[in-house]
């Protein structure tokens, strides 16, 4: 009873800080209830028993924007929203977007101003009862954007949310909701900065995407998670008829993270493409699943995962393709490769195929874990390139195509800088 009381105070603190309507508070309270009641999950490769589920104290007023982040957003010439510890600091819009009826606003404002749209879609893809951390997200979400692109509107420039997490006394709970109406075309970028070490709080990050018939959505991300905390990250898209959803997800962290990137290929001819770039260092634990669920007929998917691990990082990269009964003519491909840069790093690459349909078009998978090929290093060195640079070049080469796929130049630069920082140490 005491526990429920204290923390439901936190739910109220968040809700009143954002002056939300009553229906949101009720969603949160219900979610909190579920969170406290749900059993602790057991994960195959990740031991959660020592992690705990403390959420900390909500920070009512944000600190300033760090210099490096200020520099990053100043270089953006597309619409973005900047959050510090869940609080909106600024939104930049561009003209073109407003004229076309695109909605780009923080999620809290959206619950007031675009109630019916948000009500219809919030927690429709990442549901409250999926697991303990999806309930936690809905209970405590603070910060995040609502992006709605109307029917037949194609936007060239990306929309971006930038999150900075500086507070050590709380978990982090951003939540993004993206709705692409029929034939819409949109790119979304989700960036986190969390350089500080954290207490052992539990964080839950959610991005849900509704991609209606014929739409195209590309989400590019750059995560940096702080060591100490436990991060649950859920990114899921519901992909309609002939719609295409791409994820290009990058993570350069030394945290404890359990992440899911998933496309539910619901409509006929839906297509999913997921690329993952993971660079782990320190004592990182990363349990990452890229998943494709083929429900519609003639659905197609591709998963490419590249990991590079330093120091005592330990990563599990799972690629999972599920083809349900009736999803005839599905095609899927998985490539999963991990390089252990330092001898002390550990990696697992696990391909999973769950196929209940006999009529499958193509279904390939390749997974490998290993060290850098010493013959490649020797070859580069034989031309005069020092060993450290040779090693870096080979790792860069291997991450190159996925980095190039990130949907904006500043994002690519940011990810390159983060990876470079970790490789050149």
């Amino acid at each position, binding site marked *: 009873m005491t526990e429920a009381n204290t923390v439901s105070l936190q739910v109220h603190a968040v809700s009143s800080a954002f002056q939300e309507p009553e229906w949101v508070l009720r969603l949160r309270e219900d979610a909190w209830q579920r969170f406290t009641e749900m059993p602790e999950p057991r994960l195959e490769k990740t031991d959660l028993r020592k992690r705990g589920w403390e959420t900390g104290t909500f920070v009512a007023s944000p600190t300033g924007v760090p210099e490096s982040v200020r520099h990053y957003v100043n270089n953006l010439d597309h619409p973005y929203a900047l959050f510090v510890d869940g609080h909106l600091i600024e939104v930049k819009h561009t003209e073109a977007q407003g004229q076309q009826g695109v909605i780009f606003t923080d999620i809290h404002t959206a619950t007031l101003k675009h109630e019916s749209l948000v009500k219809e879609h919030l927690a429709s893809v990442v549901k409250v009862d999926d697991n303990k951390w999806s309930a936690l997200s809905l209970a405590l979400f603070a910060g995040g954007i609502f992006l709605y692109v109307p029917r037949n509107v194609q936007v060239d420039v990306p929309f971006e949310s930038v999150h900075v997490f500086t507070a050590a006394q709380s978990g982090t709970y951003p939540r993004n909701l993206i709705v692409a109406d029929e034939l819409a075309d949109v790119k979304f970028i989700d960036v986190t900065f969390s350089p500080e070490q954290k207490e052992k709080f539990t964080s839950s990050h959610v991005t849900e995407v509704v991609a209606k018939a014929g739409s195209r959505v590309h989400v590019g991300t750059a995560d940096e998670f702080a060591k100490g905390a436990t991060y649950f990250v859920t990114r899921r898209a519901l992909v309609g008829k002939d719609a295409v959803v791409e994820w290009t997800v990058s993570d350069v962290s030394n945290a404890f993270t359990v992440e899911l990137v998933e496309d539910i290929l619901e409509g006929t001819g839906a297509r999913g493409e997921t690329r993952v770039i993971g660079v782990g260092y320190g004592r990182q634990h990363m349990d990452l699943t890229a998943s494709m669920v083929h429900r519609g007929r003639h659905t197609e998917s591709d998963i490419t995962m590249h990991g590079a691990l330093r120091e005592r990082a330990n990563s599990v990269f799972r690629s999972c393709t599920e083809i349900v009964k009736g999803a005839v003519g599905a095609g899927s491909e998985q490539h999963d490769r991990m390089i252990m840069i330092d001898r002390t790093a550990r990696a697992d690459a696990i391909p999973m195929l769950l196929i209940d349909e006999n009529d499958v078009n193509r279904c390939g998978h390749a997974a490998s874990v290993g060290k850098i090929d010493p013959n490649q290093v020797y070859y*580069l060195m034989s031309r005069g390139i020092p060993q450290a640079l040779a090693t870096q070049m080979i790792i860069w080469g291997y991450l190159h195509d996925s980095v190039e796929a990130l949907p904006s130049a500043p994002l690519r630069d940011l990810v390159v800088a983060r990876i470079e920082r970790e490789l050149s140490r």
Partner: protein
Amino acid sequence: MAKPNFQVEDLHVSIEGKEILKGLNLHIRGGEIHAIMGPNGTGKSTLASSLMGHPHYEVTGGRVTLDGQDLLEMSTDERARAGLFLAMQYPSEVPGVSNANFIRQALNARMEEGKEIPVLKFHRTLQEKMKQLNIDPVFAERYLNEGFSGGEKKRNEILQMSMLEPRIAILDEIDSGLDIDALKVVANGVNSMKSDNIGFLIITHYQRLLNYIVPDYVHVMMQGRIVKSGDAKLAEELEAKGYDWLKEELGIEDETVEVDA
């Protein structure tokens, strides 16, 4: 600058505890072309790889110097920067690293910081040399050796050599798998570089290449040693009479590096 002076004295090399090179001597100066011939399995690639410092090969005795500097003390990249080059029999493929970037990094590694070659000048030179070697310009941006045919890999090795301008260049079976046109292109590339500033060591199984690159010295390798040396005529003689003739003359039954029981 003085002519290159490359000296190998009584070189012994083992792989996994097995002795492959058993006392090899060689002296190459700038302006000279040496050829090493020999049947398969006689230690030719072992010589090339151990001179370049491949980590798999253990030097157990002897001396190697380039311009008086002790090469065996150096790491592979230091040897390269000292002026040694090896065109490999089986060069690696490196996905995601473009040919041009690779060569540029290799060149910059030779320059002092801040004195790197201007990008434009680099690309112009690269394209020029690619044209000479009959390499399609798009290969500059292709990933290093990835998906290259055997002949394309060999030409790419020669391209790197001509960009890096080494003092001593070792070409290990640069002719294998080449048709006659490609062979001529490769030979042309080598001949056009010939000067007092570079010495060549051309390793080959067949005499054919030596019709196009005429050697000053020919050495025959058997059992991990040089068993006979001569001039270009020796290569012709070998072509006419085969290695068996030489084995008989020298009283060698098994020319390969024998495995100790």
